[in-house]
């Protein structure tokens, strides 16, 4: 009896010990963990540590986290836990400069009022209860920044958001970004002839405004304003002499320039001039004078096409919309994005459309060139006129010729350069200006310029879901295009700590085998498809000719009728063959899927059953 009793006591004590151990460890052992992800998703990055080290005056952070209210909402709760854990790591690393308090704003409590007063957003949890998950950070002066809602979907950006908040609190001044453009980035029609054109602000402009103080500059400005941190030029079409000069002087004076040019800017709303029909409008920007001085050029009027990185687009066919590979729209990834350069490190996917090829013409010894991203070695060039005029994208395959060059789309040029004005001219100017009392013009200087041969990389549809942006203003990126630009501006404008942060995180890891299958199948069946389509067209043409030849033809001869029937059935058969070809494309992928399913569901069990069967057979016969 006594033994029984003592055993029960032991059980009870063990239970207490178990509970106590877990409760204590939950509270105390907050930062003891190993981050096993390849991308180190859950470790404070160096950028964050740099920012924390830059904190001079203490900063108070309050995390409003309805931990009780969120039980039953596992994604909110785990996101809240993640936020809390991460902030605790920040605080631990800061050695007292960051003070964190985690508060549960219970319904009708004072802390709830406090949360709402600070602007923390209410999350409805049903039945008149509300939860909160937000952060307020304040420095010792009057600076205060609020993150009203930490969304679970933004999990991969959490560290960036927190670090940026701290960086902004420590150094509240936004970088001044000058903007010169002929594209309707700001939503204003610039050379608008077609009034129905979309005039909503480009999403990229919203991102720029959020991160920087954007200073729009007139296109024909004679001089770049002084107090800029970075200058962004997008689509400098028909650059006036004054602006060319201003840009030249700006970069020679050490100004940082990011320039997007384009042999064919699809975002350029210029319509054809009605007075010269048949002449295509000029949609290209190529400031040759400037580029030449920097030792580079963009191949004029030519677009990069690349079957190895082209994307599929929806294209209307007689048989309904189909996905067809569109050669000038490229998805640059992996080895073709320069991982070694800080501008492009960590970027996983860049989408470009009708991009130009940048080439180093005159390897100037004083200039350094860094290729940032490029098409694959299977790429080639096609005239931009051809791209505009071609009706069916598949025709481009016939015109395509690879040239074994990995055409560069973006590069950085730095080092000593000369002014684009020839020396005599500059000397003349100098004399004239000295007479009139103006400052000396620079003839040479240390430049640092980033040139990208595509402007469509900035348009909404290449990096964000257009529907969600147009309807709710929410930006959901599916490629690193915006990250690339913001990175570059941040880098040039100082604040390099933020660079590695933004591009961390889980972009997708797709099934590459399936993607390759798609591409291979597409090219293999493309030929078949083309032949069949030609046949179909011929048949249809003959059919039409026949129907027309019967004159006012309501009455057809028996012969004509039978001809028509024959052609009709041929047309039907050809269409059927075409559909079979298209069907084959999908079948391979589906077959792979089925094979995978079988291997994983059935194979090992079958193997084991086999083993078991053998075993029993062995027993029976032994």
């Amino acid at each position: 009896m006594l033994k029984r009793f003592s055993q029960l006591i032991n059980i009870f004590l063990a239970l207490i010990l178990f509970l106590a151990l877990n409760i204590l460890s939950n509270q105390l052992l907050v930062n003891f963990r190993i981050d096993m992800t390849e991308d180190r998703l859950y470790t404070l990055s160096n950028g964050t540590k740099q920012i924390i080290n830059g904190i001079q005056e203490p900063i108070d952070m309050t995390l409003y986290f309805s931990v009780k209210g969120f039980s039953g909402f596992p994604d909110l709760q785990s996101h809240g836990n993640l936020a809390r854990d991460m902030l605790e790591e920040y605080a631990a690393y800061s050695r007292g400069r960051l003070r964190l308090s985690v508060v549960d704003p219970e319904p009708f409590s004072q802390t709830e009022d406090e949360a709402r007063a600070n602007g923390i957003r209410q999350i409805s949890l049903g039945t008149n209860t509300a939860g909160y998950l937000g952060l307020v950070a304040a420095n010792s002066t009057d600076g205060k920044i609020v993150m009203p809602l930490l969304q679970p979907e933004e999990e991969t950006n959490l560290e960036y958001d927190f670090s940026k908040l701290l960086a902004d609190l420590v150094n509240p001044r936004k970088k001044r970004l000058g903007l010169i453009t002929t594209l309707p980035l700001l939503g204003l029609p610039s050379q608008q002839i077609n009034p129905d054109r979309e005039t909503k602000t480009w999403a990229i402009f919203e991102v720029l405004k959020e991160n920087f103080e954007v200073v729009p500059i007139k296109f024909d400005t004679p001089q770049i304003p002084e107090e800029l941190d970075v200058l962004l030029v997008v689509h400098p079409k028909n650059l006036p002499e004054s602006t060319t000069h201003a840009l030249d002087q700006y970069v020679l004076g050490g100004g940082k320039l990011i320039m997007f040019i384009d042999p064919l800017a699809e975002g350029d709303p210029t319509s054809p001039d009605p007075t010269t029909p048949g002449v295509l409008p000029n949609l290209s920007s190529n400031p040759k004078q400037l580029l030449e001085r920097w030792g580079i050029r963009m191949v004029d009027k030519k677009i990069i096409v690349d079957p190895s990185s082209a994307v599929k687009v929806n294209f209307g066919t007689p048989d309904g919309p189909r996905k067809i590979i569109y050669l000038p729209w490229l998805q640059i990834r992996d080895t073709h994005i320069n991982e070694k350069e800080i501008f492009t490190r960590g970027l996983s996917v860049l989408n470009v459309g009708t991009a130009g090829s940048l080439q180093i013409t005159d390897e100037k010894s004083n200039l350094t060139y860094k290729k940032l991203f490029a098409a694959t070695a299977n790429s080639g060039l096609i005239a931009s006129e051809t791209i505009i005029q071609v009706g069916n994208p598949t025709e481009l395959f016939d015109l395509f010729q690879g040239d074994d060059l990995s055409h560069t789309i973006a590069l950085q040029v730095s080092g000593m350069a000369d002014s684009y004005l020839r020396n005599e001219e500059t000397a003349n100017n100098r004399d004239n200006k000295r007479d009139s009392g103006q400052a000396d013009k620079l003839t040479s200087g240390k430049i640092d310029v980033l040139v990208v041969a595509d402007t469509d990389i900035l348009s909404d549809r290449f990096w964000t879901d257009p529907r969600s942006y147009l309807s709710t203003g929410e930006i959901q990126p599916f490629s690193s295009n915006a990250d690339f630009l913001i990175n570059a501006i941040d880098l040039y404008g100082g604040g390099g700590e933020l660079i590695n942060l933004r591009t961390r995180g889980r972009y997708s890891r797709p099934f590459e085998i399936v993607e390759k299958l798609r591409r291979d199948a597409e090219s293999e069946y493309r030929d078949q498809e083309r032949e069949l389509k030609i046949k179909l067209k011929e048949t249809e043409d003959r059919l039409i000719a026949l129907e027309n030849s019967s004159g006012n033809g309501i009455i057809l001869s028996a012969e004509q009728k039978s001809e028509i029937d024959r052609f009709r059935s041929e047309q039907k058969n050809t269409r059927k063959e075409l559909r079979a070809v298209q069907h084959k494309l999908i079948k391979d992928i589906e077959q792979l899927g089925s094979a995978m399913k079988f291997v994983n569901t059935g194979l090992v069990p079958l193997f084991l059953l086999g083993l078991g069967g053998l075993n029993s057979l062995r027993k029976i016969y032994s």
Partner: protein
Amino acid sequence: MNYIMAVFKREFKAYFITPVAYVFIVIFLVLNGLCTFYLGNFYERGQADLEPFFEFHPWLYMFLIPAVSMRLWSEERRSGTIELLLTLPISTGNAVIGKFLAAWAFCAIALVGTVPIWLTVNYLGNPDNTVITAGYIGSLLMAGGFLSIGACISAVTKNQVVAFVITFIICFAFNLSGFPMVLDLFRPWTPQALIEVISSFSFLTHFESIQRGVIDIRDIIFFSSLMAFWIYINIIVVEMKKGE
């Protein structure tokens, strides 16, 4: 230690003599495959990671591990062989731990059988293999957790079915302990602090963070202490039931 190994070896071999073990492994693998590919839409999803695979483990274990554990002690008690075991010159603790380890090793073998899906995902794309390793470690720990519960419960009763059902219910509760369904049971008569503690004991939340790729010491402590606790209770129960 040698005694534990002796018990372990005997028990482990015994698994593979009967066809029951093979049947169990086959069922486990088939269910895993079906859940991953059909419920989890692994292929259609197009992402090279094993999230749709691991997300079902807590639920699969909830059903299947009680089936493994139910016979651990109940069978022995019912057929009387437990007397033989306990009269051997080994401590109860050795016997309990040996049996538990054998059962756990058996589950590990079953898990190893899922390697084809790891190979598949590497063939189809380029997944983060360290995260997947973490997932397997977490899954094995969780299996051990469920198993320790099941082993203890099977020592409580002679009836395997009863052992199965009770184990199932407890595993179910541990899975759902963060959800309102379970918390509402406790809410009327426990303080809020205890409610929070209960919700932190959910297998799902601990496993979820491991399979994300983060091995947090608190999760290790949770599973280890859970196993230690139930094994300890197991030992006491076996002692208590001696002679019955």
